[in-house]
Each structure stands twice: as C-alpha cells, then as structure tokens.
C-alpha cells in the first residue's frame, strides 16, 4: 500500500499520495450522486409514515396504496401511453431530420439545426404556456395527442443531437459505396447507414421515452381532465405533503430507468 502512495499517478509523475484528496473528493461526490436516489428504495418498504431508514418494520403498504388506487393507475397508464407515443413519433421524425440536415449542403441547414434544438434552450415554462394557448385554439387541450406533440417537440433536440453526432462519426462514403453498387438512396440508408447508427437511434428512442415520462411542467398545463400524467399527480402530491406512496412510485421509476440504462448498454456493447 505504501508503494501505491509513492507510485506515479500520471505522466507528470505526481504520486498517488500527493493527490489522495482528489480521490476522496471524487468518491464522496460519486456516492452523493447515487445514494439519494437509491436510498428511496429501502425506504419505500418502511411501514412508517415518516419513511425511516433503515425501516423498523417492513411493509408493502405504499405499494398497495399505489397499485390499489384507480387514480394513480390511470395516471400511470396515461404517462406510459404518452411516453410510448412520443417515442414512436419523435424517433423517426428526429432521425429523418438529423439525416436530412447532415446530408443537405444548403446554407439554411444551420438555421434549421438551431431551430430544432431551441426546445432545449427555451425555458420549459414558456413551452408549457405557449402550448397551452395553442391547444386552446386548436381544441386539443387535455388530449393525449396534444401532450404527445408537446413532448415530441421537447424530445426532438435530443434525438437530433444524438443521431446527428452518430452521423458525424459515420463515414458517409459507405452510403456512396452502397449507391454505386446499385442501391437507391433510401435503400442505402436503410441497409447500410441505419444499422450503423442503430445504437444512437435506440438511445434517442429511450431518451424520447424518458423525456416524456419524466416531464412535469408541460404536463401540468396541457394534461388534465381525465388524462393527468403520473408526474403531474406526483408533483401535486409533493407540493401538498410528503405522501409516502410516492416513494413506492419512485422506486419503480428508478428500477425502470436502470433497466433502460442496462438495455442501452447491452445494445452499446454489441456495436
């Protein structure tokens, strides 16, 4: 161990012992990044209203609360539907846009790109009240379609950026090769380009799903009536008091997220 302390850590020959503080800070930060999210999991099985840790008595009452409530179930289904539809709309629309911008040579591409990533830059509250107003005019307020369209707009920048980055790293002469070998452009894209940016497209799809599923502010304004989303209900519950049921929902969401990450990693490794 003493050897390790005095062994060089970098090319500049600083030794590990001299920067042990760096390792301590980094590890503490990593723990603080992960633990608050994960600690909710055991807490959600606490029998107490105050969610103590470690729980004195274990129970699944908050899960029963959640799964037993029509309101929570309805909201969950709305959220899942919205997220799935957002994914199904945003991914192809965004991938096409990214490809179009990548392959186009005209000057307007720059403007179009900036326009497509503005939803990420504009404060989400503005998107929410803007969409609210627009939906009143279009008479699609509180509809699933309205929610999906707004969430699609929020997800598009991510799809365009992730897919665009993958296209940038992709050798377009492969598509030219496919075309010289007899494939029309669309077929060259489907058989040669798409399989190679597959990972980015899947990532984009997962991100679109999560963007919609996690979204609060837009949902506060344009989802409602019979169709409030899960996050909207959670947010309202949080503002009022700490409902332990939310711990159980959080746990489920963390597990789903982690599952998706693992999924994404698995696809990534195949690449």
């Amino acid at each position: 161990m003493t050897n390790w302390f005095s062994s060089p850590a970098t090319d500049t020959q600083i030794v590990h012992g001299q920067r042990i503080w760096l390792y301590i800070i980094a590890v503490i930060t990593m723990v603080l990044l992960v633990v608050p999210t994960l600690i909710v999991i055991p807490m959600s099985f606490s029998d107490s209203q105050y969610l103590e840790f470690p729980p004195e008595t274990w129970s699944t009452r908050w899960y029963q609360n959640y799964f037993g409530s029509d309101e929570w179930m309805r909201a969950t289904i709305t959220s899942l539907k919205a997220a799935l539809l957002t994914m199904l709309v945003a991914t192809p629309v965004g991938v096409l846009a990214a490809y179009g911008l990548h392959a186009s040579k005209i000057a307007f591409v720059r403007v179009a790109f900036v326009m497509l990533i503005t939803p990420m830059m504009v404060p989400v509250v503005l998107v929410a009240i803007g969409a609210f107003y627009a939906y009143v005019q279009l008479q699609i307020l509180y509809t699933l379609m309205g929610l999906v369209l707004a969430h699609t707009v929020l997800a598009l920048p991510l799809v365009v950026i992730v897919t665009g980055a993958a296209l940038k790293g992709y050798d377009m002469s492969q598509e030219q090769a496919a075309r010289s070998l007899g494939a029309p452009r669309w077929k060259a894209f489907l058989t040669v380009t798409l399989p190679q940016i597959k990972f980015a497209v899947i990532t984009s799809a997962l991100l679109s799903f999560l963007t919609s599923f996690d979204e609060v502010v837009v949902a506060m304004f344009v989802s409602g009536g019979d169709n409030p989303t899960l996050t909207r209900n959670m947010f309202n519950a949080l503002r009022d008091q700490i409902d332990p049921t939310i711990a159980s929902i959080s746990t489920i969401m963390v597990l789903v997220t982690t599952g998706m990450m693992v999924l994404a990693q698995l696809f990534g490794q195949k690449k």
Partner: protein
Amino acid sequence: MASTDIPSTDMNAAGLRSDERLERLKLFGLSSPALILVMIILVLPVGWLFYVSFIGADGNFSLENYERMVARKSYMRIFRTTFLVSIMTTGLCILIGYPLAYFLSQLPKKWANIALITVLLPFWTSLLVRTYAWLVLLQKKGLVNEWAMSLGLWDEPIKMVHNMTGNLIGMVHIMLPFLILPLYGAMTAINRDFMKAASNLGASPRRAFWTVFFPLTTPGLFAGALMVFILCLGFFVTPAVLGGGKVIMVSMKIVSNIELFVNWGAASALGVVLLVSTMVILWIASRFLNFDQMTGGGRH
C-alpha cells in the same frame, strides 16, 4: 459520329440545375416534419406570448406589463433570486464537478466506464424522483438530521428543505451531470503527450496541470457551465418543491400568474424577459464557443 450525338447546346445545364434543386429539396424535406412541429408547438405560440406581453388590461398596446416589473420590488427580487440561484448552482457544480471529471478522466477506460455510471444513473433518473429523494432525506425528521444528531454534529434538527439550502442541494445534484459529461469529454480528448511534453520542458506536475491541462479543458468547462446556467434560469420543479415558497424563481412566478391570477399579460412579459436573457447569454457565449461543443455534450 452521328449528329444526334451532339449534346444539347446548354450541355445539360438546365437539366442538371433542376436535378440539383430537386435533390436539395428532397433532402431538406426530410427535416420538414420536425421543423413544422417545432414551428406550430413552440415558435408560433412563443411569438404570440411576445405579442400578449405588450397588451394592457384594457386590450390595447401598452408597456404596463413591463413597467410593473420594474416598478414592483417583488418582481425585481424574483429576478435577483433567479440569477443568484443560477450563479450559485453553476459555481457549486464547477467546484464539485471538475475534480470528479478529472478523476474520471484519469481512470483506465474500463474503470472509467463503470465510475461513469454514477454520473449517468442520476442523469437518467426522473427529476421528480430525485427531488423527492432530497425532500425525504433533508426533512426535519429525515435521515440527514437523524444521522447528524446521532453523530453529534448538531443537537436540534436543522431546517434544510423549503429554503435556499435545500433548493441549492437539490439543484446542484440535478445539474452536476450536465457539467461533468461535456467536461469529461473534453478531458479525455486531450492528447496525453501534451502533459509529457510539459514535464519534459520542465514544468512541475502542478504547473503542468494549470498551464497545459486546465486551459485545454476550459471549452468543455465553459460549455457545461453554460448549459447548467441556462437550465437553472428556467428551472421550475426543484425550486417549487425544495424551495417551499421561500425561493421564488421567474418560472414559478409565471406559473402562479397563470394558475392563480390568469394574468397572461404579466406571465408573458416575465416569460419574454426570461427568454431574452437566455438568448442573450447564449448569443454572447456562442461568440466564444463552438455551438457543437455544447450540443455534443448531451446525454450519451
């Protein structure tokens, strides 16, 4: 050769031109669904908000929505809070994030990928879930108070949520990945020979870091910090939950203007100021920074 063999007098110029136009149109057309969506759902409504912000209570053109903002102390306070919270969050993120990003960039590839999960997991986890977690941990009877008291750090439970402290803790936690990821990218892109060269030329490890490594990471640092700052300016969920009414940011005022007072004019004017400040900051930043660096640092 037969005379029919002679190409048309313009050497196919007209045909080639129209082919080129058609191809460009087709390629660009691929992005039109996305552009149209953004146009209808975002650009036009926000344009309408601009318009509404200049309409007074009597339905005529008026600057009253903006005059009110300058005149009323409460509004000025909200803007001050918003900028203060954003600056503090960004600053804390840099202080905490830079060492971690540096640490990650020094790890062997295999370990770095594993350690990176600790940054990516919160990144992918719902904002609401993370905010809720802090709410639970930081409340009076929460885990942090309990442990601190049992360790003897303080005797009475300290109020850590529904105030600035809780808000900052939550926001820094949520924003950290946005800083770390582009920064980590910038750090791993640095050619290791630079540091060897610096050493060879006589720089001490510390000096080599500050004169060679650090300057090379500033674009990534700047991109990440800008991202964090911009996101903070428009942040709503975390301050609304963890701030508990004590920390009022512009976004929250906009929402309450509409939800409670149905005052579109006031809300729009606030929104316009928020949007314009965001755009001005982005515009200034874009003069120092390649846009792609920033957008390249998104979720991976």
